[in-house]
């Protein structure tokens, strides 16, 4: 377990925070300009082909729009990248729709059912980028980010890839599905490029540091603030 890791790049999306710049400002200063218009934020995902964009879920678009902000400048081949998707609740809005359809006695929407699996964003992202690399999806309650980071670090430690895109996203849980004791501040999507660092400095971290996250209340936002 000798490797040390760094966040080489990252981006994120949420309502009122639709760029890395704005998200970073929120992380550091807590500022967020929000139109209280009741309209759900859906990222544009202009890089996606229309056919994929039409079908992609909100969770997928939050992740994909963030991902493209950190990869588009490379213009490189994304066909063999390793990805880890971390989400506590996955496609929770689609699940709510499906349960409603069943409750109303309607036939289930086949498209909704296909889109209801926890790892749906990884499917759309692989279709968009023609990526055939390793793809993992993790869920672990309040330790979901820690689990995703550990999976990503181990992929690098095991030399299965030099870098990993760690994608993190969650939506707000509909009231019909139950109570969340420590909800996220908002629906968001995030893409983080994880690579091996040259050595230990104030922004880098080891697998032991990641393991410690499982025993603390640190979430993805706390972690980013400390390591970017």
């Amino acid at each position, binding site marked *: *377990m000798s490797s040390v890791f760094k966040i080489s790049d990252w981006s994120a999306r949420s309502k009122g925070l639709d760029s890395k710049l704005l998200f970073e400002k929120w992380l550091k200063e807590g500022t967020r300009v929000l139109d209280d218009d009741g309209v759900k934020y859906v990222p544009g995902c202009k890089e996606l082909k229309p056919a994929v964009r039409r*079908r992609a879920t909100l969770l997928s678009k939050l992740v994909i729009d963030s991902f493209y902000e950190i990869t588009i400048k490379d213009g490189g081949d994304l*066909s063999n990248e390793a990805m880890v998707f971390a989400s*506590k*609740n*996955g496609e929770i809005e689609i*699940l709510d729709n*499906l*349960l409603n359809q*069943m*409750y109303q*006695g309607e*036939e*289930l929407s*086949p498209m909704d*059912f*296909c*889109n*209801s*699996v*926890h*790892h*749906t964003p*990884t*499917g*759309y992202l*692989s*279709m968009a*980028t*023609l*990526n*055939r*690399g*390793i*793809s*993992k*999806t*993790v*869920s*672990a*309650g309040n*330790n*979901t980010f820690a*689990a995703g980071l*550990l*999976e990503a670090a*181990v992929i690098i*430690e*095991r030399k*299965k890839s030099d870098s990993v895109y760690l994608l993190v996203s969650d939506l707000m*849980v509909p009231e*019909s*599905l*139950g*109570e*969340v*004791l420590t909800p996220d501040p908002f629906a968001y999507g995030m893409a983080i490029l994880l690579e091996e660092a040259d050595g230990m400095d104030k922004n880098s971290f080891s*697998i032991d540091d990641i*393991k410690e996250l*499982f025993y603390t209340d640190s979430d993805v936002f706390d972690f980013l603030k400390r390591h970017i």
Partner: protein
Amino acid sequence: MSVHITAFGVISSLGVGIDKSTDVLFSAIPPELSSYEKSDGSQAPVRRISYDLPMLDKRFSKYECRNNRIASAILKQIEISVKAAMDKYGPKEVAVVAGSSTSGLDKTEKAFKYYKTNGNHPDDYNFETQHSMGSLSEFIAKKVGAEGPAYTISTACSSAAKAMISAADLIKSGVCKAVITGGVDTLCDLTVNGFSSLGQLSEGRLNSLSKNRSGLNIGEGGALFLFTAENIENIENLNLVFKGGGESMDAYHISAPHPEGLGAKLSMERALKDCSLVPAQISYINLHGTATKANDAMESKAVNDVFGSVLCSSTKSFTGHCLGASGAVEAAICCLSLNDELLRLPPHIFDGEYDEDIELLEIVKNEETLKPEFFKNGYIYFLSNSFAFGGNNCSIIIEKKRAS
């Protein structure tokens, strides 16, 4: 470094435990199908666990759901080995990485209906500890007292197989010394009605590779494995090793597999590379074999492209498609076959009318045993495939040390 399979337990429609599962599997007579009522009132044949699953101990009431009851019943089968690992390594060196696609969804379905009718949820419903995917691994960790990292892999039908690769990687990279891994999934309205909406449910028994095949029987169940960095004293050595695995994405469609099996080929090739093996060293493949038109057509092509001739079977005619747990249940079937004194291979049960429009595979007949040439070097290798929505593919390889 080898990742030892120190213990494993299994529950499915084959029955409870290794002995019962072995007896039913090699009888070549799949159990009777059960019935599941769909939303439209019609019945779908499914593979249900007929064992009466006891409620969880009161200490774990916040985790109470069928999925965790199944997990609890499987843990009982490996509890001596798990305790030995905890005693040897200490709780912080024991992690949990399990796979699931349903978690406590059956309980959520009931709670949702209750909410719609009454405006509140039942008192015994807890979204975070019953519904959430993370619930399975968190419950397993709490039940056994493991304090290492605990998380769930959820990639639909490849969940458990991927969990096992992750578990092995945690040990190989020194993160921990032991991992409880595998997967559990439960029958529920959403999956039965969902696959029905796709036209992928068979009206009869799952009939993989047949020209008459018409899709799945949804199943439920699970298998849990104790992976360890070394053999544990006073625990019988099964001489089984989780050799490794390969993963890939199709990059093709959100639910249909790549018709040429590109992703499936890639995951099998990567599994071989990960294990430093060549195709000729694999003596048996447990197919994903869901009996959908698309899967069987592409998987038969992919297997032939990579292996040419190799004995294979789909055991989903016995267990149904256990979705997120299928990789674990089928890995357990591989393990019990590898440990069988009579060297019997899991038979391929279908109506005998092979689809001539798909590539021909060498399928395991009833009572067929391992070929002698696979004992020459003292190691036997089985491969198991799991392919999921979103083109998310996984192939795992299990090794058995066996002189004769």
